[in-house]
């Protein structure tokens, strides 16, 4: 089994629209959306949810007023300044470390695992989809990402599917690290802007750090062709494979408004041919086909 994770560093470069197009082109595959705090893939794939599960994240502290003696030890020990002088925990500052509970002489701290979101197992017109919704402002997005990737692997194995295509989150932090660890290969979607180049370098560095092979695709390349060439040079310097250039095309937005992938929106368009050949290049690339190319099981 193999897993391709689509990431970008910078947001808004076209990850989701492209992943959805790949979903329409791929065969014998399963889809996964690990952008758990702003998931959008379902807007194009209109999933029918088959199973809903609660995501139990970390615990948060709450001080039981009637048991509290007001000794102040918890406020003194809390390294996150999450407990006010009148002993109320601010949940958005509470890190869930449990120090206040461990040291409270009155056992006045309630510390329970909480529901931090939900994850879903769904069917779509392009195969099964595993996706999630992190509660607003919640933490532990990395834990939720690892959980749904593990579920995706389990489900793919069970159904004899060979490929997982994952729509990843922007950035280089916790949810991205959780999205890429152990993946077969990454596709970095870049836009030809000074920010796009900068952010691609950081995400490529992250891939190198975790030793995950990556490919690069330039989206909206004609918005700045000079910058597109700079990005290709940079890609070459980093010994990454460029799988293609996609022009800026309002069809992406029009398809999105209709809730369709660009493949369905206008099957005869030149754009479809461009994206299909990129998909074929990815699919037949050495990174995705060589024998040792497989997913490493996700720990925890």
């Amino acid at each position, binding site marked *: 089994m193999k897993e391709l994770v689509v990431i970008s560093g910078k947001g808004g470069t076209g990850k989701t629209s492209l992943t959805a197009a790949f979903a329409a082109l791929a065969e014998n595959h399963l889809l996964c959306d690990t952008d758990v705090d702003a998931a959008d893939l379902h807007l194009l794939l209109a999933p029918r949810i088959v199973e809903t599960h609660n995501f139990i994240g970390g*615990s948060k502290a709450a001080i039981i007023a009637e048991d509290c003696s007001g000794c102040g030890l918890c406020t003194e020990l809390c390294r996150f300044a999450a407990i006010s002088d009148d002993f109320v925990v601010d949940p958005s500052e509470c890190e869930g470390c449990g120090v206040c509970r461990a040291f409270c002489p009155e056992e006045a701290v309630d510390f329970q695992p909480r529901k931090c979101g939900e994850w879903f197992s769904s069917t779509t017109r392009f195969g099964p989809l595993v996706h999630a919704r*992190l509660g607003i*402002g919640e933490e532990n997005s990395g834990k939720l990402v690892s959980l749904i990737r593990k579920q995706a692997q389990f489900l793919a194995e069970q159904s004899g599917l060979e490929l997982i295509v994952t729509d990843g*989150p922007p950035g280089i932090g916790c949810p991205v*690290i959780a999205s890429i660890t152990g993946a077969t290969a990454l596709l970095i979607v870049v836009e030809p802007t000074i920010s796009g180049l900068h952010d691609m370098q950081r995400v490529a560095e992250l891939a190198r750090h975790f030793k995950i092979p990556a490919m690069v695709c330039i989206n909206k390349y004609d918005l700045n062709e000079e910058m597109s060439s700079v990005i290709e040079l940079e890609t070459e310097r980093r010994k990454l494979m460029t799988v293609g250039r996609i022009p800026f095309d309002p069809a992406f*937005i029009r398809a*999105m408004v209709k809730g369709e992938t660009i493949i369905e929106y206008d099957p005869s368009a030149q754009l479809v041919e461009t994206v299909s050949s990129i998909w074929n290049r990815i699919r037949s690339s050495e990174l995705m086909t060589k024998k040792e190319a497989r997913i490493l099981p996700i720990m925890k």
Partner: protein
Amino acid sequence: MIISVASGKGGTGKTTVSINLAASLKRPLKLLDCDVEEPNVHLFIKPGELVSRTESTFVPVIDETRCNGCRKCAELCEFNALAVIGEKVLVFPELCHSCEGCQMICPEQAVKDGHRELGTIETGTWNHITLSYGRLRVGEAMSPPLISRVQSIIEPADLVIIDAPPGTSCPAIKAMKVSDFVLLVTEPTPFGLHDLVLTVEAVKKLSIPCGLVINRADIGNEDVYRYARKEGLPILMEIPFSRTIAEIYSQGGLLVDQSPEWRIRFCRLFDSIAETAVLGEVSQ
């Protein structure tokens, strides 16, 4: 006053709005790039000289001559950053959240101060702007601690513009939480609207007044406008899609340098923010 510029969806134009708003105002202000995973402001606002400071956070180091393998530290740690194999304590520094609980609970004083690098903070000045931004170390998972460090230079009388990270989870909340007003930048597409709704919910939870900037206002559909009307969210500015704007951005340019018209529009945006923020305070 502290204004944070946020959006659920990435790539809607947060940085464009932050930098042009900051550049258009002719008075001293602090511009903080809190998108520490992928900071971009410095590619547009380029101070001649940057002072770089490395930021790190506590992680435990076990003094094996003192440790008796009692396991209290590993039992306390909620993040699995400590494990005891036989009588030996193993530390996984990248999982540590720096609560220092292991040090507090160790009866043998065997937990010493170690550190893990979070990243750097770069600070410099450009005309009337003091720019400060965080650069998360590649491989570091936790961005909120570095975001807090970037915000630590804020003083009560400052005018501050914060460029927030995308999303609605802890990094975005951390960046927005300190602000008096949240300027939400969105685009009128299904993805833009879906992520905007989540961000508006988050801002409501924080009880901070907010307003919208609709970028690429002429693409997509009318749903964002309908949503704004329904929720009573003021639309403070609309920026049309244009290839010229996209090209200026792609090269690291500022809109306000292109024409006085843009400068006037961003100054007006600031005035409407100030007005809305005051009204928001009165209504709360």
